[in-house]
């Protein structure tokens, strides 16, 4: 059996088995599903990582490609590396679900959604891949369990925007082959599709309710695990139709970054700040896609992969903080930090990684972005505004950290401004 077909079949079979176990709806079955998922996901990851896809001379093996009548599925080494990371990420989600069984997330549907997502990256022609992306989004709708957190509106918006991106991606994928670039504004079509798919301004509106109400596991799935695959789909299209930076794309990325700064300034709860930090990373990742480089390499996706790492750390920290039922408002976090120092440290380290602070994994991505801006002709106002927004979000994070660590009770910055004084 060709490897791409084997991989997709294995994913769907494992998802089916887990779904059958999930149907039992008992606490033991839920834990067994999570354990089986972690083991199955880990096993698949190990199998995929050890596969040989090319000959000693570097030519692709015939088994790495499956040609049907009208389409071809091909697993390249860079795509295999991305698949390994996605499967490992899903196995980590299963482990987190084992630790936090009450967090709403349907693991089988999340795994089933990975199959069309990976197929979208493997398939030629790319127009079929756009359809597979929407099928994946529809399965993610089930995985997010919106009824458990009153999120049907937010999830609906995610589905609508992903579906609206598909026709644009199909047209963008069709245009280079048809050599009809002059008929439609191809660069703008690709930029709009990327903004719709990757949560650029003004299409990020579904993210805040997701991060404010859903389980951090759901946010980790939708904003940490899926975007690298979406970016891997968009990057070759961008390279084909967009030789230089597009103003629409830049404005969308910058708009998202500025919205993140506004959200950080108005943040009241820990989750608001988490949403702001993540939204900042979403905008900066969108801008990072415009940097020159090999669109098929894993290095081009590194900002998205680093976001997954930051979200994993901060999400795990948030789950630990919320597990104890401690207060969620920012000015009450000093108590949280004293009671759960490890959880608070995990959350803050994850957030600092998302903004790209030094000594965190995220710094690599931010440094690459700054170096890229230095090497290419990016408008100065874009750089200044993006750095200003970054500074605002970092200030809010530092404020939380300093308030939690140093200020004695009643004299913190939050206490002075936000806590209502007792009536005389």
């Amino acid at each position, binding site marked *: 059996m060709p490897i791409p077909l084997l991989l997709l079949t294995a994913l769907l079979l494992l998802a089916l088995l887990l779904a059958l176990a999930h149907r039992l709806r008992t606490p033991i079955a839920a834990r067994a599903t999570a354990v089986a998922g972690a083991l199955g996901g880990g096993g698949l990851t190990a199998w995929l990582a050890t596969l040989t896809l090319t000959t000693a001379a570097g030519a692709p093996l015939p088994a790495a490609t499956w040609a049907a*009548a*009208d*389409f071809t599925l091909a697993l390249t080494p860079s795509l295999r590396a991305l698949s390994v990371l996605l499967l490992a990420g899903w196995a980590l989600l299963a482990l987190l679900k084992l630790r936090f069984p009450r967090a709403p997330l349907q693991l089988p549907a999340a795994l089933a959604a990975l199959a069309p997502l990976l197929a979208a990256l493997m398939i030629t022609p790319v*127009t*079929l891949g756009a*359809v*597979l992306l*929407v*099928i994946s*989004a*529809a399965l993610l*709708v*089930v995985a997010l*369990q*919106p*009824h458990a957190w*009153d999120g*049907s*509106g937010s*999830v*609906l918006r995610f*589905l*609508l925007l992903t*579906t*609206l991106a*598909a*026709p644009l991606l*199909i*047209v963008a994928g*069709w245009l280079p082959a*048809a050599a*009809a670039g002059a*008929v*439609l504004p191809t660069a703008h079509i690709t930029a709009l599709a990327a903004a719709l798919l990757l949560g650029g301004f003004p299409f990020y509106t579904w993210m805040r309710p997701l991060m404010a109400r859903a389980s951090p596991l759901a946010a980790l799935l939708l904003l940490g695990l899926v975007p690298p695959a979406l970016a891997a789909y968009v990057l070759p299209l961008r390279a084909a139709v967009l030789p230089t930076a597009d103003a629409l794309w830049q404005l969308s990325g910058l708009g998202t970054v500025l919205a993140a700064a506004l959200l950080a300034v108005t943040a009241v709860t820990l989750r608001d700040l988490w949403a702001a930090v993540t939204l900042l990373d979403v905008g900066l990742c969108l801008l990072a896609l415009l940097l020159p480089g090999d669109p098929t390499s894993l290095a081009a996706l590194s900002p998205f992969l680093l976001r997954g790492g930051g979200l994993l750390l901060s999400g795990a920290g948030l789950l630990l903080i919320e597990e104890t039922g401690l207060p969620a408002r920012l000015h009450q976090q000093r108590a949280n930090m004293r009671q759960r120092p490890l959880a608070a440290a995990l959350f803050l380290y994850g957030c600092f990684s998302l903004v790209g602070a030094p000594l965190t994994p995220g710094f690599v991505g931010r440094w690459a972005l700054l170096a890229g801006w230095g090497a290419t002709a990016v408008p100065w106002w874009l750089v200044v505004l993006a750095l200003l927004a970054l500074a605002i979000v970092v200030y809010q994070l530092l404020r939380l950290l300093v308030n939690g660590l140093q200020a004695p009770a009643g004299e913190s910055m939050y206490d002075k401004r936000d806590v209502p004084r007792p009536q005389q």
Partner: protein
Amino acid sequence: MNLLFNFPTLFDWIEWASFLRGQPAALLVLVTAVLITLFWDWRLALLALLTQYLAAALLFIDLLEPRLAIVKLFVGLFVCLMIYWTARQTAWRLPKPEGVWRLRLGPLTLPFTRGALLRLVGVLILTPAVMLLAPRAALRLPGLTAALAHVNLAVLGLAGLGLLALAVSRDPLPAGMGLLTFLTGFELFYSALDQSVAMLIALAALNFVLALAIAYLTQSRPASLAARYPQPAGPD
């Protein structure tokens, strides 16, 4: 038995509906899109969606081989069936009945919300604009020649009104119907560019999966859950 052997073939049906082909089908598609966007009542909107799939099938015949065009019709019929069962299961109704004005027209009662007024204004602006602008050569989409100007009108109308419907609706059912309307418009456009069977199957699968996702979201909205699993009354 004789009736079975003399049952009209696909081509007989197309011949029978030939009076609707071309511009009338495009206009019919536009009217159904208007009704879906206004979304007065789910039954009326669903009937409009069904009619839209029938009329769009006549437009697909201008672009695809009839045997392929009929696949689009069957997909549409199944999608309508899925939406019908969803709406029936969830006893679908507007989420906030207190903010609704009701207009009685004989046996028919048309509920108007603030959102419906917004939709009406949007439709009143968009529909004439599409009808005026679609015949212009500058707005002719690639693949649609002058002989297919009616398809151009249908594509622009369906895409525009579909986008309006999903932009002004917060509820999964009306927004979903708007999305399906938009997708029909896109499929019409793309059929002029690419007639491959793989893409036809992929777009059919897309319609089914989206209808399922819309059904799932409709079932999981709070109003639907409250209707299906009512809470027992409290002591007071």
